[in-house]
């Protein structure tokens, strides 16, 4: 009795609905899609902090190393996550990376195009291919799995065939000299905050080379792109009308269409998004390595999807987050680099990757049930 009267009293006082159950902050957190990935990344850092804390993994140089790997994966994982929230897959991400690479390298090296023009060309091709993927899926109603699987083979094959036809080889080197003086290339090829690292080096806070320059010269462009894209994607998903359309398109295609969401246009734009993200990935890697390789990006589509799933995206669409995908990418990047600092044989990395994904899917499934059925 006393409990009841108390609750009525408290309702009067606060004007709150008595049916509004007190939800602990933990429960609120549980309803966020990125929770699993957040927990996972904390565990991963604790693990390597203990196992490899004194090996230089967490020095400036070591940290930038695994951040660079995470960031590269993150760029495509975020785009893949947005597409997955929109209810589709893109298996052609990896092949698109290779294709974009030669779209930059062949015109620049063999046709004498300025680098900015070939980069623009690569992005134009990405938009076209993304559009084609999207329109195929939307118009035919075929599963995107099949359509983009076909594109995986087509693009990889075309990349190899075209490169060999024009160059007689499978690699196109010689880009490095073109980067300087180019009006665009620096966007994908500049280490930022170099002054900071120089200063840190002078203060003897980070490791130096024998000539006195710091070992880590600056934040790699991939990391800047990764952070920018994470913020941009999160803003879109959470704060814009288009973001709501993405969730709606993936959550219930028919329902969304019926209330006037342009589902087809949303999906096509998301396919363009993954192709463009692949091209950003390709730009950064090609300009960093100074050469394009026809096999670049192989299997990256699966890693991107794995990172998105670990980050809380449902395979059925309508649920997920960009921050989650970013955390998923950080987990994979950290483990793939960190494993070198431990005594564990690196052969075990893929085992970890698979196990991680399996745990994530089971966990996500449980979360979805909680979200939709906590009556």
């Amino acid at each position, binding site marked *: 009795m006393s409990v009841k009267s108390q609750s009525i009293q408290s309702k009067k006082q606060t004007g709150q609905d008595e049916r*509004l159950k007190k939800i602990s902050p933990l429960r609120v957190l549980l309803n966020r899609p990125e929770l699993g990935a957040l927990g996972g990344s904390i565990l991963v850092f604790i693990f390597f902090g203990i196992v490899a804390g004194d090996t230089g993994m967490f020095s400036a140089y070591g940290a930038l190393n695994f951040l660079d790997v995470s960031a590269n994966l993150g760029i495509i994982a975020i785009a893949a996550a947005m597409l997955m929230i929109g209810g589709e897959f893109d298996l052609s991400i990896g092949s698109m990376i290779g294709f974009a690479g030669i779209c930059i390298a062949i015109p620049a090296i063999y046709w004498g195009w300025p680098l900015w023009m070939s980069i623009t060309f690569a992005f134009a091709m990405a938009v076209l291919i993304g559009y084609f993927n999207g329109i195929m899926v939307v118009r035919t109603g075929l599963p995107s799995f099949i359509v983009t699987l076909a594109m995986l083979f087509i693009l990889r094959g075309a990349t190899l065939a075209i490169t060999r036809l024009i160059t007689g080889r499978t690699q196109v080197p010689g880009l490095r000299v073109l980067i300087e003086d180019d009006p665009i290339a620096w966007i994908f090829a500049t280490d930022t905050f170099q002054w900071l690292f120089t200063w840190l080096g002078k203060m003897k806070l980070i490791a130096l080379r024998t000539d006195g320059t710091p070992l880590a010269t600056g934040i790699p462009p991939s990391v800047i792109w990764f952070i920018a894209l994470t913020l941009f994607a999160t*803003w879109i998903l959470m704060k*814009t009308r288009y973001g709501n359309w993405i969730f709606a398109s993936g959550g*219930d295609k028919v*329902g969304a269409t019926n*209330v006037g969401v342009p589902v087809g246009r949303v999906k096509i734009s998301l396919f363009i998004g993954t192709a463009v993200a692949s091209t950003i990935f390709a730009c950064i890697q090609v300009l960093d390595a100074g050469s394009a390789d026809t096999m670049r990006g192989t299997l990256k589509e699966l890693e991107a999807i794995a990172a998105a799933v670990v980050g809380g995206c449902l395979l059925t669409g309508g*649920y997920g987050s960009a921050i989650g995908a970013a955390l998923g990418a950080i987990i994979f990047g950290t483990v793939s680099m960190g494993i070198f600092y431990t005594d564990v044989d690196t052969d075990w990395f893929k085992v970890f990757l698979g196990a991680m994904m399996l745990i994530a899917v089971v966990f996500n499934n449980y979360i979805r049930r909680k979200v*939709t059925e906590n009556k």
Partner: protein
Amino acid sequence: MSEYLVQFNNISKFFGKVIALKDVTMRLRKGEIMCLLGDNGAGKSTLIKTLAGVHKPDEGEIIFEDKKIIFDSPRDALDIGIGTVYQDLALVSLMSVTRNFFMGREPQKGIPFFKTFDVEKANKIAAERMGQIGIDVRDPSQAVGTMSGGERQCLAISRAIYFGAKVLVLDEPTSALGVHQASMVLKYIVKAASEGLAVILITHNVHHAYPVGNSFTVLNRGRSMGTFQKKDISREKLLSMMAGGEELDKLEVELKEMDRVART
């Protein structure tokens, strides 16, 4: 200005050789609830989709406020004020009440190219609107999957009204509901009509339709069997018309015959 808010005159729809609808005519005044009754396969779904702009009628015309209208998409129908609430409600259970309420028509704020979804305003309106029909949305950011069937139905109807529906097309709004939930939804429908909306209520449940309807149109095998005012027709007559009363009579005779044969 004619007395009717909306007229669907001699609507026909064919799918290849199949005649899904033939010469169906319905006319509605403001504040009127017309119940569209029909058995499975009578052409109800096709008619709804034609009203909603999903299908284009092959014959006939739609006249809204004395203007002839041709819909190219569901969006056109929404824009002139025909709001359709489908059986599946077009709600995404993983998304929040607010995000569902404004799905496809999110309020925005900010400068062009950087416009954001005004979540606060949306939350406020959604909670307010749901409150008006007596549903306390405990938390507008809760997932729709946590609501009851009646609440979801009311959310979908409330959304259609909020976005300017003058004609409300409801597809089987009570079919999946228990008695209490169904009466809550029906009450809300009557209230909406009393505020000046024209309502087309599609159902196969005469017991739900008869108390709330002003007029009744019966569909059978793609054709209209006529529109009746409430005073002109009894519940029983309506029931036997839509359920194919003749067929049931015939069945009864056959059963008797079988019984007789068995006995001899």
